[in-house]
């Protein structure tokens, strides 16, 4: 087994454990490269099926190609696609692009709050109807107690402290200092009512592993990652806060070569994501329940 085989096997093991232990399980799909790899691994784990819904929080400010790609792939793979949104904040224009709040508050409104209420079922969820090919109101209001998330420990400091199975309390809070032990592939799968568990099958993967796997498995990714006019996106988010990087990598194998060259070894993967640079940045956002 090479490194990619080992990573794949471990991720599949984690996905299956999650599926066995959580009745109300979902997987967050941000449309980015990591959660798309996760979607691929889920199909491998369950022999071509994805036996839980994919949840996407739509800020309405996502780069339009991302939404197009999301629906195309969801229809093709016949997955149960569920979308949530903070309608109130959008209606009241409590967003950064509207100029009424700063980037961090905007992230909190459109992502963290929207995610929390979509997961708990308190706000409307919309489900992709595969016959009509459009989103309809989801009747199911059950909270999700297990949430699969594609974070990697090498992305950023706070994510490197994560466990594979990480409990979140009623307020979505994460106690970094006192986490449950995790050994011998035994995970925290017992939890008190009202709390939920985040599951991180990609924790051991690096950015380079992700691209090598995409290359090996020929996973379809959005073209935003590929260079156009000397620029490409390295990390995807909302267009007002996400900037492409300088790169000539026009194919997946060129991205792999680019990363192997060490060109970015001193530049953070999320450097194009403006909200990380605001006061407190990602760690503050994550403690409040951001992915």
């Amino acid at each position, binding site marked *: 087994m090479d490194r990619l085989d080992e990573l794949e096997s471990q991720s599949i093991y984690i996905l299956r454990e999650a599926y066995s232990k959580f009745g109300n399980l979902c997987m967050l799909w941000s449309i980015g490269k990591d959660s798309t790899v996760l979607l691929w691994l889920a199909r491998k784990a369950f022999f071509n099926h994805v036996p839980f819904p994919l949840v996407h929080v739509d800020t309405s400010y996502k780069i339009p190609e991302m939404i197009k790609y999301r629906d195309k792939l969801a229809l093709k793979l016949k997955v149960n696609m569920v979308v949530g949104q903070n309608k109130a904040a959008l209606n009241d224009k409590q967003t950064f692009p509207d100029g009424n709040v700063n980037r961090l508050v905007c992230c909190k409104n459109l992502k963290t709050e929207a995610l929390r209420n979509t997961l708990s079922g308190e706000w409307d969820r919309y489900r992709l109807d595969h016959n009509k090919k459009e989103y309809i109101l989801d009747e199911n209001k059950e909270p999700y107690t297990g949430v699969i998330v594609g974070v990697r420990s090498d992305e950023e400091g706070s994510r490197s402290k994560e466990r594979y199975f990480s409990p979140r309390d009623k307020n979505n809070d994460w106690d970094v200092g006192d986490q449950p032990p995790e050994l*011998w592939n035994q995970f925290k799968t017992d939890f008190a009512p009202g709390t939920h568990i985040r599951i991180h099958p990609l924790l051991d993967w690096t950015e380079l592993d992700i691209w090598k796997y995409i290359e090996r498995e020929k996973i379809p990714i959005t073209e935003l990652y590929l260079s156009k006019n000397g620029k490409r996106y390295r990390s995807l988010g909302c267009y007002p806060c996400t900037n492409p990087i300088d790169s000539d990598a026009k194919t997946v194998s060129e991205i792999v070569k680019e990363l192997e060259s060490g060109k970015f070894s001193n530049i*953070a993967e999320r450097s194009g994501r403006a909200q990380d640079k605001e006061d407190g940045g990602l760690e503050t956002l994550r403690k409040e329940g951001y992915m």
Partner: protein
Amino acid sequence: MKEQMNIVIVGHVDHGKSTVIGRLLADTNSLPEGKLDQVRENCKRESKVFEYAFLLDALKDEQSQGITIDSARCFFKSSLRDYIIIDAPGHIEFLKNMISGAARAEAALLIIDADEGIQENSRRHGYMLSMLGIKQVVVCVNKMDLVDYSKSVFDKIKSDYSEFLGNVGITPKEFIPISALKGDNIIKGSESLSWFEGNSVLSSLDSFKKEKSEEEKPFRMFVQGVYKFTRKGDSRRIIAGRVDSGSIKVGDKVVFFPSNKSSEVSSIECLNSTRTEVSAGHSTGFTLKEQVYINRGEVMCRKDERTPYVSSSIKSNIFWMGKESMVLDRWYKLKLGTLEVPVRLKKVFDVLDASSLDGCRRNEINRHDVAKCLLECKSSAAFDMFSEINASGRFVIVDDYDIAGGGIITGFVEDKRNVVWHDREITREERSKILGHRSKMIWFTGLSGSGKSTVAVALQKKLIQEGKMVYVLDGDNVRHGLNKDLGFSEMDRIENIRRIGEVGTLFVDSGLITLAAFISPYTKDRNIVRNRLGDDFIEVFVKCAIDECEKRDPKGLYKKARKGEIKEFTGVSAPYEAPKNPEITVDTSKLSVQESVDKIYDYLASNDVI
């Protein structure tokens, strides 16, 4: 792609873990460009003496600022492979984190300060590595510069610590005298240590092997799930899991434990590819030739290989991380592979001080204790000895919602019910073996109100609580069904007893301890049953004077009989023939219910029934 190996660096506080790491990073040129100069420059500016340990802090700072350093955890490389150093804090308060980290390592460096010698955590960490099954260990005797590179200091530590590690089952690959501060023996030898002929730390690490040995062992796979996605138009029934050890191919005969069901591998399922063989480490799925109904938690094994042990009593070494101590007879949850089963602590043989290996006797296991103990599972589990197969020889214990302990299996007590099945008629002996007791018909006779049913029901409760299979036949459950057509004429009375005797015989043959509580006033009737059952018939005379029975009169029958509303009522208007030689007599006017139960229980125990 170059091979990667996870290593953990452990040792007592201030014995130089960070300096060793800093040195390895610097001397193998694994630092980001300019980092070393930058840290040296900072030290100069702050008038501090440069230390290699600062490199680690600098990297951690950068990581928290979001700058990627190629890998989340810090790493260094040799010409052979990349090493990932897993962070494992040395302080006892972080034992939980040390274990979570070290459990993922394939090899370990144990650091001991030459000047301070072996300390508490040198021993504790050595012991934890052994518990976690990390066998590839190198001991670095650090700070040799502080003891003038003395060979005798090194030899003394080597001999003392070897002895300790030997006691916990670790044979280090080698002991290396080093000075991380000066760089002696980190990646190359040193003049000051010219008396030492062994490897440098790096070449010693390079001589470790990636664990491949699990493939050579018997095949084991804990079933994670049995998937059938019929609604999505897929009729396959797939047994899914990750192969823990060994290998298997299409056509191999398999057995699942503890259920002992067997079948044959029909296919190995993969997405977009085909395989006919799969080995340790792979997450996979199988379809079977003959469908067997098995659940998550069973272990899939090959019929042509050694099969696992099956028992409910497990001897193990446990380390406890829970805030609450582990106490006797409380139910916890055992997770062994994908098996989950209620478990309780039955006996603590020894609680070890993990740092000194001194034992003490206690009936609970406290936080940070390591204990040798006996666990009892609510139902049988299939497992291996940890020394034979790691994955099926270790478990965790969940207290409330959290993993509170981990343990390795060192032995077991054979279950009485653990019998081998053969394809032939099952004998009564075999049934007895499964149940762990023999079967008898215990016949309670006595006047109405003497306490037959009360004593029988209390006895049943006691026996059931001990896991025995018992059933009580009495007027209530027999008269309303089986003997509903019978009245109280002499013919019907004899037929009533005969039928009870026949049912009792079947029950006894099926292995049940059968308790029958009937007035059965005539010796002749009781003898019909005695003759039918022979040695399996135990007569209990529930003795109580008629006055006392009439005083109790629980169903008001004596009152009715005295008024003449019931004809031929035993003791009032019909005779009761007391047994002449009953096996047991309990006088309920003198003995309490409990005492009566105990008397019968003692009889059963001393006659090898239970």
